[in-house]
């Protein structure tokens, strides 16, 4: 338990970041028109693929002979990459249709 208090004390700035980012997220999304709910969800989903960075770091830090870690890391990168690339591409496809109808 003590180590948790220590962690909180040492990372006060981090906790500020956490809380203000949460508030920012709430503020960014309020007042979204219904037609944008699906593309927005899809776009946010693509951003959550940022977890891929962790997988890249995992591989970079791995021992070149540690094939288990390398394979798991590579699996993580593949999964994250599908999330990121697929997510942004699908969002773009949805939004492209909204542009078309304005013409």
């Amino acid at each position, binding site marked *: 338990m003590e*180590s*948790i208090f220590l*962690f909180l004390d040492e990372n006060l700035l*981090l906790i500020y970041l*956490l809380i203000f*980012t949460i508030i920012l*997220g*709430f503020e960014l*999304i309020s*007042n*979204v028109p*219904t*037609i*944008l*709910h*699906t593309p*927005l969800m*899809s*776009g*946010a*989903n*693509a*951003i*959550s693929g*940022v*977890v891929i*960075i*962790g*997988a*890249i*770091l995992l*591989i*970079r*830090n*791995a021992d*070149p002979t540690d094939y288990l*870690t390398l394979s798991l*890391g*590579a699996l*993580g*990168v*593949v*999964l*994250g*990459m*599908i*999330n990121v*690339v*697929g*997510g*942004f*591409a*699908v969002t*773009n*496809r*949805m*939004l492209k*249709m*909204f542009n078309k*109808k304005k013409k």
Partner: protein
Amino acid sequence: MLITTVNITYLLGAVAFAIGLRQMSTPATARKGNLLATIGMSVAILATLFLPIEGADNNYIWIMGAMILGGIIGYISAIKIEMTAMPQMVSVFNGLGGACAVVLAYTELSHVSIGRIAASQAQLLILLLTLLIGAVAFTGSMLAYGKLQGLVDDRKVTLPSHNLINVVILAFLLGLATFIFLSGTQPGLVWISTLLAVSLLYGLSFVAPIGGADMPVVISLLNAFTGLSAAAAGLIYDNNIMMVGGILVGSAGIILTVVMCRAMNRSLANVLIGGFGENNKKKKEKGEKQVAKEITCADLAVQLYYSSTVMVVPGYGLAVAQAQKVVKRMDNLLSANGVDVTYAIHPVAGRMPGHMNVLLAEADVPYPKLLDMEDANEAMANTDMVIVIGANDVVNPAAYDDPASPVYGMPVINVWEAKNVVVLKRSMNPGYAGIQNQLFFHHKTRMLFGDAKNTLEELNDEIKTLEG
């Protein structure tokens, strides 16, 4: 020098995420916002490749290979997927993001368990949370995909007192995580694997009793979960953009979930534990047998041809039948003969809010023809003919007059106020919410059974013969 560049790039990437999300919530700038977020992600990934790590072996070959493979799979699935299956696709992408977090947390935890790396108590807690949340997001999203794709039947995966079972699994899960957390900073791999297995199971069990019609809300919530697990993983790697990006998606996802629930006039708790199925089954059996009146394509064609205003109310059936382009052709035929055709879009018609707008936009239906629910209800009394295509719960009069109905109080499109109503439907089976619809037995209503696309094509042929 390099480290500063990387840090500044991360900062810019995080700002791009925030501004991108902001722009994505306004129609005029939405596409720009998505592009901005894409650029933010690309530079963040690039910066991670160049981030100096002392004594690291880098293994770039592995990274590049995996990135190319994942990129190709992701791009092709995003391009190939039918517009109608978009919601499922988002769910799959989201699940894979969760799976990525699971792989990370599990690998790091296994390293901790054999003592290869040391973790503080706080780091251990964060790793356990990443594993747990990511696993729930993964299996939950996959089941949501299965339900939307029609691979999984709601009733078959729901056990008696399923909500109670969920509480028990969740309690066990949290107890197990607490036990691992308290049992020192070098937990056994067996315990970690058990935690993973139970988390995966809970994800399935959590989504199982929730009706297919509520999947958009669930996907949005699971999306927030994936964001949170990414943020937690960011804490482990001490990586700011993972933290900021993850938390942004987490909080934005939760608020979006709440907004969606509000559009259905229900609370999140009601969606999650409401479980449509059970009590309705009893009611349906109790009700006396009613007969719906049918209409033929030829008759409907004549009625449409001589109407002056026609309103189309699309639902998920339109998406399933891929009928949006046929509808547009009917619209063209009728419009050419002086019929005023509009479309009434219920906020939650289809499987996701905005689903119908996307589909109709794909078929080149002009924007001014789409009416939102309020405008549609105002125009209803002056509408000669309403065609309901594969919609059910969003046109259910029980929302007004049956307090026992699960849709009671939900805003619906009052199609029965129009002069005539025709419902295109595959069969008399109740809608996704699993409840019967009195509209089908209303004196103004006629039913036209069959696959929406075939029916509409037949209808178009009939209209053409009238033009002579």
